[in-house]
């Protein structure tokens, strides 16, 4: 089977600190994957590398067999861990903006989600609350028909009801060919929707397994296991 995301001996160092320290990983199409790990374990670094925003210090990361760059931007829909959109734009303008950049942007899908979340499309991003800004950015990211969605902390500032809606949105738009990778600390909220989890620990994959197998073997939730593995 073809792999959608491959990391081989992936190293990324900032000065002398190894954010990723020889990471080996493969992710198949059609999966919903939780990328979990304590602060500073390399989650965001991995996502940035996979999106071509950083270049590896050593080793490689491949998207569908291709080095991240111009070509993979049409395959990957990325939600950064911090606001990246022009704050002066209205939600309407942002939709045009996305449609210009990404041929796979689905306006109807976007419209529908914005309406459900009651986000006022004539308002400027900077005039919205933090949670609403996050929702807008996530809706835009999920409105693309990409092969790989990389969501870096998609629900941090969002209320629990909206979290449920967001997860439902991810499930509804689920495409058997596409993979969604969610980096998050809100494990209990997401674990029902995950196929598999990856525990990152100091730049390496400490665990990569199916969620149901994990529960069957340990009799514990992913959340409980995480607390155990990464106990301070």
């Amino acid at each position: 089977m073809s792999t959608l995301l491959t990391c081989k001996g992936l190293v990324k160092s900032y000065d002398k600190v190894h954010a990723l320290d020889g990471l080996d990983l493969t992710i198949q199409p059609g999966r919903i994957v939780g990328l979990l790990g304590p602060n500073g374990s390399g989650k965001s670094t991995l996502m940035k590398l996979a999106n071509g925003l950083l270049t590896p210090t050593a080793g490689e990361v491949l998207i569908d067999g291709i080095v991240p760059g111009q070509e993979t931007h049409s395959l990957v829909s990325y939600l950064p861990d911090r606001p990246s959109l022009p704050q002066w734009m209205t939600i309407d303008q942002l939709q045009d903006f996305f449609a210009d950049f990404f041929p796979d942007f689905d306006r109807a899908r976007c419209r529908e989600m914005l309406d459900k979340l009651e986000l006022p499309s004539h308002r400027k991003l900077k005039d919205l609350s933090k949670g609403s800004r996050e929702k807008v950015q996530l809706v835009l990211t999920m409105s693309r028909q990409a092969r790989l969605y990389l969501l870096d902390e998609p629900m941090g500032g969002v209320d629990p009801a909206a979290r449920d809606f967001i997860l439902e949105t991810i499930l509804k738009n689920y495409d058997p060919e596409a993979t969604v990778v969610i980096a998050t600390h809100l494990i209990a909220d997401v674990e029902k929707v995950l196929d598999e989890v990856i525990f990152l620990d100091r730049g390496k994959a400490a665990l990569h397994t199916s969620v149901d197998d994990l529960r069957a073997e340990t009799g514990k939730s992913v959340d409980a296991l995480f607390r155990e593995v990464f106990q301070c």
Partner: protein
Amino acid sequence: MPWEFRSDLPIYTQLIAQIQQRIVTGQLQPGDRLPSVRDWAAEAGVNPNTMQRAMTEMERQGLVHSQRTAGRFVTEDEAVIRKLREDLARTQVRDFLAAMGQLGFGPDEIAALIQKEGENSL
């Protein structure tokens, strides 16, 4: 009936248990057409692959069957459903007896208690 999931058991086994419950209680009738895996997964808030796994297992158990293009249906075989009902009842009784055993009740005491409570509540 809303879906509810415990955190310490595999989701697909919990899906199976809850769908079995719906079949036995008649909430899902023999021959009823089931929602698509995708829709049902979204409604339950679980991963479609997990729902698919539950369906595959229930097909193996003969509780549901799929027809090429028409979709997936609850079995029309009443005997299979009757057997499922008995199996579920047996599990309930076993769990109950185990719990009573832990409280230190013996078979005669349990039988007497059931008799008494039964008279009160029926």
